[in-house]
C-alpha cells in the first residue's frame, strides 16, 4: 500500500443536494494509484482529526479524484467551505478497496452517502451491474424510506427480489451499518459473495494508532481488524455485526 500527504488544488466543486458536495481534486500521483473503495483522510482547518471520505472516482488521465460528502457535523461543514482554487490537505489513497473481477454479474447496493463510492464499481462492470440506491428521501433513486420517490421500503426488498430472479455473483454494499447487516444476511441466505464498506471513527487512517477497530472472524476465530487498513471494504462473512 502506498499513500501520500499533500495540499492539492480543488478544480471543481458542485453542490449536488442540500448539504451534499462533490469536489474534484487535482493530485495526479494519487489518482494514478487509487482503487475503487479506497478513501482519503481530509484535514478540516481548526479540527484536531482528519475526516475519512471515500474516493468515489479517480481519473488517472486527468490526474483527478472526486470526493462526494455530506455535511454531518462541524468538520465536514468546514471542509464544505473550501472552493474551486483552494487547496485541500489530504492523505490518500488509503485502505483496501473492492475486489473487482471481469465477467461477473453484480449488484451494487448503496444507502445515502454510501452510493457515490459504488460508482466506480458499477462503471467497471458496466451492463453487468445493477444498482440499487436507497436514500432516506431524495430525487433520482429507486427507493426511499418515506416513499417520496421510487420504491417505498428498504433496499433489502428489491435486493432480495433480484437475488431470487437473477443469478448474482457478487454484492457490493456501502451505507449505514444496519443496512449492511441486513444485506450480509441476505448474501448468506442466497449464498452470494458480498463485500461491504464499513465506517468507523479514525485518527491516523494508516494503521498506526489502532483506534478504528472492528470485530471480524476468520476460520471461526474472532479478532479485531482495523477499518483503515484491513478495510474499509470487508468480505461480509468476516464482519461481526453488533446488535
Amino acid at each position, binding site marked *: *500500500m*502506498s*499513500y501520500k*500527504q499533500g495540499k492539492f488544488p480543488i478544480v471543481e466543486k458542485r453542490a449536488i443536494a442540500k448539504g451534499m458536495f462533490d469536489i474534484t481534486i487535482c493530485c495526479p500521483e494519487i489518482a494514478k494509484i487509487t482503487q475503487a473503495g479506497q478513501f482519503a483522510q481530509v*484535514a478540516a482547518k481548526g*479540527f*484536531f*482529526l*482528519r475526516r475519512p471520505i471515500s474516493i468515489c472516482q479517480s481519473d488517472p488521465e486527468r490526474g483527478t479524484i472526486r470526493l462526494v460528502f455530506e455535511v454531518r457535523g462541524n*468538520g465536514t461543514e468546514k471542509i464544505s467551505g473550501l472552493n474551486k482554487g483552494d487547496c485541500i490537505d489530504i*492523505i490518500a489513497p488509503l485502505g483496501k478497496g473492492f475486489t473487482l473481477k471481469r465477467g461477473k454479474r453484480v449488484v451494487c447496493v448503496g444507502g445515502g452517502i454510501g452510493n457515490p463510492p459504488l460508482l466506480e464499481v458499477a462503471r467497471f462492470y458496466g451492463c453487468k451491474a445493477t444498482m440499487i440506491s436507497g436514500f432516506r428521501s431524495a430525487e433520482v433513486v429507486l427507493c426511499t424510506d418515506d416513499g417520496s420517490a421510487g420504491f417505498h421500503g428498504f433496499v433489502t426488498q428489491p435486493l432480495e427480489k433480484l437475488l431470487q430472479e437473477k443469478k448474482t455473483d457478487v454484492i457490493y454494499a456501502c451505507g449505514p451499518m444496519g443496512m449492511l447487516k441486513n444485506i450480509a444476511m441476505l448474501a448468506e441466505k442466497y449464498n452470494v459473495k458480498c463485500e461491504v464498506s464499513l465506517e*468507523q*471513527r*479514525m*485518527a*491516523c*487512517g*494508516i*494503521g*498506526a*494508532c*489502532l*483506534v*478504528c*477497530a*472492528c*470485530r471480524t472472524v476468520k476460520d471461526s476465530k474472532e*479478532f*479485531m481488524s482495523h477499518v483503515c487498513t484491513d478495510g474499509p471494504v470487508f468480505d461480509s462473512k468476516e464482519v461481526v455485526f453488533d446488535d
Partner: protein
Amino acid sequence: MTKLNVNFCGLDFKNPIIPASGTFGYGREYEKFYSLSRLGGISVKGTTLNPRQGNPAPRVAETPSGMLNSVGLQNGGVDKFISYELPHLSKCDTRIIANIAGATAEECAEVAKKLNGQKVDMIELNISCPNVKQGGAAFGTNPCTAAEVTKAVRNATSIPLMVKLSPNVTDITEIAKAVEGAGADAVSLINTLLGMRIDINTGRPILKNNVGGLSGAAVFPIAVRMVWQVANAVKIPVCGMGGVCSGEDAIELMMAGATTVQVGAYNFQNPYACIDIIEQMEKWCKKHGVNDIKDIIGTVKPW
C-alpha cells in the same frame, strides 16, 4: 549548525524527538513518509506478555484541540514484537524504546526479561494501566505500587529503564520520586488524562469504553507544568510529552526540564510531525544563537 544531539541515560540520541508510544505503531506506516533514521528514537506501541485485543470501538472521540482514545493496549504480545517487529526496526539508525505494560508487577518483569539481549536501547514502563492485584487502580496512581513494579522490572533487566508517569494523580512528584528510588534511569510524562465525551443526541458516551485518555494540543500546558515539577523533584533525566505540535512546543518542554521529547497525537494530523518539529527546532536555535540544544534544558527562570 546547531548540535541537536542529546545524552539521555548514557545513550546518545541524534536529536531529542521521539514519536510517542501508541501513536506510531512500530514505525512501518510512517516509514512511507520519511526515513525513521531521522528520528532521535522511536517509542513503540505498548507491548504486553500475551496478545491483547483491546476495547470495543468506537475508540476515539475528537475534543477541542485534541482527542480521547480507549484503544486498551491492543498488541500482538512481546514474542511477536521480538520476532516480527524488532528485526525490521533495528535496521533503522535510531534509538528503539520498547514500551511495556502488564496487569501485575510479575507480568511487567516477565516482558522485560524477554527483551534482555534484544536490540532494544531502552525500556519505557507504562504504569498507567490497571493493576489487577490491587483491585484495578493503576500502578501509577500510588507511590508504593509504582515503586514495586519499577523494582520488579529493574531486577529483571539491565536495559536502561524509563518509567512513564500518569498525570491522573494529585502529586506527580511523589510518584516520580518513588520510581527514582526504585531504580528507574529516567521518567517520561505525561501519559493521557482521563476524559469523557457524550453524544447529546443519543445520550450515549462516544467511546464504547465510556471514558478514555485525552491527548493532543489541549494537554500541553499540563505537560509543561508537570515536566517542570518533576524535573525539579528528581535527579534522573526527564522525557517530556503531551500536546507537542511544533518545534517551539518541544523547546518549551525542554526549557521546563525535558532532555528528550515525545510527539504523539499530532502525528495523526500531520504525518510529517516529527520531521517538521526537528526542522523547526533547528531553525529556532539558529535564530536565537543556540549552538547546542543541550544548553536550553531546564533553563526556565521561574518567578
